[in-house]
């Protein structure tokens, strides 16, 4: 499978002027991240708040400029495109956000919001636009007559559908989905997840699915990359990551997922402490301050572990071969 999107050594630092104009250490939101997304594939970027996953998505679409690194879309370097070329490529790459309300203009009808992309990119003659908008609304499961309504008239789930229709309006092949269902109630969340899966199937879309919830990710992702403090610490197929994780952080993250089943007595690993500050990350392995690996030693505090194949995944842990697993001894 050739990659549709390739990201190499992406770095995004946020600089802020410190107190009294002295420069503060930069926040290292993304610190050397590389991955590929294939055609028709979903790669999930998973991690807790502050791990840099959203910064990856935004930088990739150049909603923010990267500090360094490379991002290729069909072989074209997104980061070196000029404005015209960037506009061209944004027909293909879109983003949907966690809160669809804040990304919709409250004074613009939903139909106008969806038509905007078609107009900007001259994708259809004017008289065909209403028909296109109606078809898009139907495709995302909304009544075509809703085109005349305003965003506030919709529920959260419906707004997210509008956000998706808006992304689909251009000749799209790649969507960054930034926590698209985490603000939705469970019953609506399931509807939107199913819709995203169906659209991928029908249109051959690729997704970079940014999320914190591994159970949600399992429903939609082919592969998972786990981020911690701006770095990918483990990457592999969804099945391998969930069944045989090798990085201690992935193990902890998995064990913390609350499962709605009292009979599934899973070993919970409760991590001690908090996420270190991304402006002052610990030396060596970024996870060593919270790691529970019995072999943890001075090497972890000095040497940054690189992603390397262990078992069925790529894991950035010096001792990934012997990572303890929180085995689910589920009583059926």
């Amino acid at each position, binding site marked *: 499978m050739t990659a549709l999107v390739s990201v190499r050594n992406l770095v995004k630092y946020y600089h802020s002027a410190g107190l009294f104009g002295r420069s503060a250490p930069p926040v290292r939101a993304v610190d050397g991240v590389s991955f590929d997304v294939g055609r028709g594939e979903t790669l999930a970027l998973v991690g*807790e*708040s502050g791990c840099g996953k959203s910064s990856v998505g935004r930088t990739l679409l150049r909603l923010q400029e990267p500090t360094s690194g490379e991002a290729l879309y069909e072989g074209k370097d997104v980061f070196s495109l000029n404005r015209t070329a960037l506009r061209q490529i944004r027909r293909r790459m879109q983003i949907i956000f966690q809160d669809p309300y804040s990304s919709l203009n409250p004074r613009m009808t939903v139909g106008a919001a969806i038509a905007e992309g078609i107009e900007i990119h001259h994708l259809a003659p004017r008289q065909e636009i209403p028909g296109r908008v109606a078809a898009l609304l139907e495709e995302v499961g909304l009544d075509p007559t809703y085109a005349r309504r305003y965003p506030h008239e919709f*529920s*959260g*789930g*419906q707004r997210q559908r509008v956000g998706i229709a808006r992304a689909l309006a251009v000749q799209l092949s790649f969507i960054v989905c930034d926590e698209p269902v985490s603000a939705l*109630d*469970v*019953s*609506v*969340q*399931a*509807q939107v*997840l*199913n819709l995203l*899966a169906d659209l991928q199937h029908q249109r051959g879309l690729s997704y970079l699915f940014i999320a*914190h*919830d*591994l*159970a*949600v990710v*399992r*429903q939609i992702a082919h592969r998972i990359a786990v981020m911690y403090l701006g770095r990918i610490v483990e990457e592999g197929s969804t099945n391998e990551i*969930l069944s045989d994780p090798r990085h201690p952080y992935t193990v*902890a*993250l*998995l064990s*913390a*997922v*609350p*499962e*709605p*089943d*009292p*009979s*599934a*007595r*899973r070993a*919970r690993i*409760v*991590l001690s*402490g*908090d*996420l270190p500050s991304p402006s002052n990350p610990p030396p060596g392995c970024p996870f060593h301050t919270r790691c529970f690996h019995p072999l943890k030693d001075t090497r972890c505090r000095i040497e940054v572990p690189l992603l390397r194949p262990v078992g069925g995944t790529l894991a950035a842990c010096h001792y990934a071969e012997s990572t303890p697993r929180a085995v*689910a001894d*589920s009583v059926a």
Partner: protein
Amino acid sequence: MTRVLEVNNLRVSFPGTGHTRFYPVDGVSFSLERGEMLALVGESGCGKSLTSLALLQLIPPPGRIEGGSTIRLGDTDVLTLKGEALRRIRGRRVGMIFQDPMTSLNPVFTVEAQVIEGILAHFKISKAEARDRALQLLREVGIPDPADRLKAYPHQLSGGMRQRVMIAIALSAEPEILVADEPTTALDVTVQAQILEVLDGLRTRRGMAVLLITHDLGIVAGRADRVAVMYAGQIVEEAATARLFANPSHPYTQGLFASVPRITGPLKRLNPIRGSVPAPAAWPTGCRFRPRCPQAFDRSETEPPLIPVEPDHRMRCWLAEDPNTSRSLFLDS
């Protein structure tokens, strides 16, 4: 067992258009025993948070608690209390923690000042004694280096630490009941696990009753003793946790379970409930779940009461009266 809280026919109303009022909480009854954890589960807009605010008469005007509602805290009839008498039970007998600890903490005071303020408001002790007690509380909720953290300001703490401070403040008055309204929703999963362990420990050690308000069935499993599922301002199903998770019987509860993505077990396409939760001003007539219910039938046009499915397991659905129908439902789910 000692009953510490009994809520009967609680109705909360807000003014609607014209002279009408609507009822976001509409006839909610439940009770809580000493040391028990009851989870009130539901999606946004189901009335679960208003229910918890009503317990201490904290409904913001123009909302009001309707006549005919009763809330008994032991021997105290909460809804007859006013002024000083009401203030004495807030915090002292019922403690509360909320989703976002940052908005509940005062940013310009240290943790120490805020924890001690709570202690001194309820107990006649010296400042030094209060400080010792604050230190002890911080230790109890699992804050490392508690002496250092006492000197910190809220912004210097992480979300998980702030929530621990809030729990410490809620505990400072030694309440019989802790109401935890989505206490871990704003926190990351690894931190969420830590906070839930803290709540569990307090319940066992102090015999404190916990009313856990959440949208997340996952955090309820294996923690709460009983679960009450709310939909459109009413409790629609209530049972012991193990029983409810093994036999979700109300079509809404079944729909919720079918919507939740799982981390283990066979990977299936999710089977969501159609439509979305109606607005409180537009609760449907008859069974309120009827417009979204795949099993609605002619009787659903009449509003069902809570009907026993089994002893200690009730649901607001006419299917409970037809054992054949409900059994086949379980097989489907």
